């Protein structure tokens, strides 16, 4: 049997290590929540400022349909923003790697754009694009696409030159070099970029909603905050956390699928070419 180690493959760990992996954070979280509940019940903190976890859960159930409705809007915003940043970020990254003129022209501008704090230019986006969903999607895109571009560039450049030379020496075209060498090598980095971008897209959607909106979880946070319904604010934050985690988890699952598919499709090709 393989020696137990903290690796990605949970299934091969002995059962006790596997349970510990979930048990430790769960117990810590439960302890934190119990302390939180005790502190708020004892009245040491005003419920206007920090409501008890039990109150937050109760509010979540009371306002379930409202929360679902608002989540729908915010989810649409960050999914579209993320989709746009992938659709533009990946090809842009590839272009930067394959074309020196483009790299020289675009890269510094990208860095400059990235250093602009998006929260500062969000109001300008709203003035240009109005207060509807477009501005939120574009703010989410603006925040999320840079990590994708960078990680794509890094990933595509990480292929070993020897492997590329080998494929070329066997008569491989640039496209085959890309498909069999650069792209598979880049996948880990690309997915790292996608995972970062997934959390940033949610931030972008909320920033947009904070500047101006008439629906969504960010809007609800502001309105609930403005009406001193602090439990509802926390319920929204809870919802946002869940959404962000689910999204991140989905991207991770996608990574597993894509990597496995790519490996197996190359194996089939390799067998087929005999």
């Amino acid at each position: 049997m393989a020696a137990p180690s903290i690796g990605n493959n949970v299934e091969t760990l002995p059962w006790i290590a596997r349970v510990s992996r979930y048990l430790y954070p769960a117990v810590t979280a439960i302890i934190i929540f119990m302390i939180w509940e005790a502190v708020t019940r004892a009245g040491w903190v005003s419920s206007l400022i920090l409501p008890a976890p039990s109150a937050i859960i109760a509010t979540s159930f009371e306002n379930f349909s409202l929360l679902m409705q608002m989540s729908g809007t915010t989810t649409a915003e960050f999914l579209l923003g993320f989709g746009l940043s992938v659709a533009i970020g990946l090809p842009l990254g590839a272009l930067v790697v394959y074309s020196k003129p483009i790299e020289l022209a675009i890269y510094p501008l990208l860095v400059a754009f990235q250093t602009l704090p998006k929260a500062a230019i969000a109001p300008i986006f709203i003035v240009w694009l109005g207060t509807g969903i477009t501005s939120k999607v574009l703010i989410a895109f603006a925040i999320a696409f840079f990590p994708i571009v960078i990680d794509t560039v890094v990933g595509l450049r990480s292929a070993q030159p020897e492997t590329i030379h080998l494929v070329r020496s066997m008569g491989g075209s640039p496209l085959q070099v890309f498909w069999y060498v650069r792209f598979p090598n880049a996948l880990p980095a690309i997915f790292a970029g996608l995972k970062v971008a997934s959390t940033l897209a949610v931030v972008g959607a909320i920033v947009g909603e904070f500047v101006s909106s008439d629906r969504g979880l960010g809007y609800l946070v502001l309105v609930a905050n403005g009406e001193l319904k602090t439990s509802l604010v926390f319920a929204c934050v809870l919802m946002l956390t869940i959404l962000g985690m689910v999204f991140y988890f989905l991207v991770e699952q996608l990574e597993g699928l894509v990597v496995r598919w790519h490996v197996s499709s190359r194996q089939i090709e390799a067998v087929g070419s005999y």
Partner: protein
Amino acid sequence: MTGNQRSKSFGPSRRNFLRNSAGAGLALAAGTRIRTARAAAEKVNFQLDWIPYGRHAPYYAALEKGFYSSRGLDVSIAQGRGTLQGIRTLIAGQSQFVFQDIGVMMAVRAKEHAQIKALACMYQKSPHTVFYIKGHGITKPKDLEGKRIAFSPGDSPKLMFPAFAKANGIDEAKVKWLSVDPNSKNAVLLNHSSDAMITYIFTLPVLQKAAQGGDVVETFVYSDYGADFYSDGIGAMEEYLKEKPEVARNFVQATMEGFKYAIEHPKEAIAMLKKHQPQLDEDTALKEIPLLRKLINYDHHDGPLGSVTEEKMKATQDLMIKYLGLKNPPPVAEMFTNRFLN
């Protein structure tokens, strides 16, 4: 004995940590004692209701002219983002005084049992206003049904809107509310992203100046349309007033002195405000002072400037009960005190 303990007298060890922290503790205690002996000024945080504009010049005048410091107060004036946010800082103890809407103070006191008291009232008539652009389908309050109104969550024009709505037969469910960051509300109205916008009357000069393409900005002022009530004044927690009545008296008196100065010497007061808010446009700010003069009844006040009458306080409360569904209202006499104005 764990392997972590070493008996060396230098480098990381528990003994050294204790030694060093004891030394640091002594130094800190000594320093604090020295500091408190020298510092006589009482540190006070004063939170405004909004971004500082011309209407806030009195407080900065009081600051710059030394009205606060001559009474032993070290006042920090903080920008606000709305009534409830400001009241929250008061409850949390982050500010000792706030400049906020008295009606909302009353509502918070009733609902959350937070013992807030009004010490003076500056806007003796409500300055809450609906701004809209002429020629886009709004001519009377009822036309607001079906239109988009820009508001900032937690600010008093939105909280008090039901009073205006009921007084004018507006079905609030038919209004489309658009939440907007306080700093972007003007832009959202002027570029027609919203049909109307609610804030205080003071914004009128700014809007008129920035209006594009011949747009004319018009208003429905709540107090002209059946919803008149006490608006912004100075608030503080009862506990604090019991603990430090002298500080409260000094603060209120210095602030009223600042008001008198600003109304008598508007240009100088605006210049003092500009020192703290360099982006301020002095001309538009100057136009707010006459509006301020009217709101505080500068030329027609009975009793000390800024004093609150039980009659109008009761009227404000009745409005809150009738239009805003205020329950368990605190006894009117408990809501305010004029004793610091003398």
